[in-house]
């Protein structure tokens, strides 16, 4: 219980991790829902009709036919949304509070913090190319690049595998 209360300690000020998370959630909904829709449409019509034929209601049809068939693709859609959220810059920069130094590691959800993309956006213009500041920021960008590539490759492998099933199925 102490841990749970620790998450929510402090006074909400508005510019904190919590606000930024809500905005990110709103921003990734279109990505996730459109891919999820595509994946569910790829379920063969016969599967759905078979479930209906057994007397299933719409929800039972979803449970019996659509969900097991499109599970991989739905996971892929969620990871795709995660990839969007990782790279999102400006909305997060305006809301996360841009803490620097030790306070950038937050102790609760209602504390300001910093993300990889927000620190690049905030400090890039002021950084001088002569010193280590600019190379350090580009290094942050390299880590972000690696994470983004991993997330997106995994997500696309899952989604395309799902959609390939559609082409091979006895749908036509």
């Amino acid at each position, binding site marked *: 219980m102490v841990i749970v209360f620790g998450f929510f300690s402090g006074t909400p000020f508005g510019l904190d991790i919590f606000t930024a998370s809500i905005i990110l959630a709103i921003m990734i909904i279109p990505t996730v829902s459109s891919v999820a829709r595509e994946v569910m449409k790829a379920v063969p019509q016969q599967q759905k009709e078979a479930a209906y034929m057994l007397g299933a209601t719409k929800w039972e049809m979803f449970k019996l036919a659509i969900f097991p068939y499109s599970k991989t693709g739905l996971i892929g859609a969620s990871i795709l949304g995660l990839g969007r959220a990782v790279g999102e810059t400006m909305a997060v920069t305006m809301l996360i509070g841009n803490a620097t130094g030790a306070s950038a590691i937050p102790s609760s959800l209602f504390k300001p913090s910093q993300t990889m993309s927000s620190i690049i*956006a905030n400090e890039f*213009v002021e950084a001088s190319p002569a010193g280590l500041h600019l190379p350090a920021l580009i290094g942050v960008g390299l880590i972000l690049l690696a994470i983004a590539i991993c997330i997106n490759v995994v997500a696309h492998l899952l989604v*395309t595998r799902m959609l390939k099933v559609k082409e091979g199925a006895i749908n036509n």
Partner: protein
Amino acid sequence: MNVNKRQEYRTLFKQNVKRRLFVDKIVRLTVISCVIIVIIPLGSILVEVFKNGITAISIEFLTEVPGSIGSGEGGIGPAIQGTLIVIGMASMIGVPIGVLSGIFLSEFGDNKLAKSIRFFNDVFMEFPSILLGIFAFLVIVLVLGHFSVWAGAFALALIMFPIVARTTEESLKMVPVTYREAGMALGLRHWVVTVRIVIAAAKNGIVTGILLSVARIGGETAPLIMTILGSSLFFSNFDTPMDALPLRIWRLSLLPYDSAQMQGWGAALVLILIIIGINIGVRTLVLNKYDTYRFGRMIKEKIGGRK
């Protein structure tokens, strides 16, 4: 089976059906309420921007250079001009590359090379835009030694062309194979079939994809910070920093003055109106209503005939 037992089964069955229909109804209500929860923020964004932005807009606001910080005077003239210039230049670089690679993927894309290109194109499409900004900074700004419009247009074109390639490929694939075969049967060469038949039939889809990517790059801020930097002056040449609407909105929203924030809302409204304007303008100029109708019916017939 005696009558009593049959009666018992019947009531059991009725209860079971009632329960299942109840669960179904609850799930349906949950799903619908989720949709409403999703729509509320989207609608409220538009309402807020219009409500707050409409008071800031005037002729001076649209045409003048920004006044001194916090005075609440001046306007966003350079930002509007800069956004239009940078969108135009990015389109000039991004659209030809995107459309041509889309044609390659759709018409000549039946091999391993095209498959891997398609995959990496999909991955590239989801890249964080700030990384493309850093790339443009390293390749152009550091090499030339100053921030420039070229770098901004290059970064935006990088965001643009995977989207255009993907949508072009999708819309070319919608054209029925029989159209291509008819062209082949007349003895036309492959490229003639592609250019004169396939692209002509899929024009609407291609234009829609281009407009989609324009809408996307119109709102990009992150790559512009490190490429065109922002300024308070009107455009002079391509080798100097320039202003753009997303950058101006960001700067204005960070200022602690109420007047500046109202100007930020106004700039946001102008940006939305510009994107909508480009969309409607291109649609009415390029797209032919009859074509749209015919193409839609053709696709419908194809899908209907397959089932």
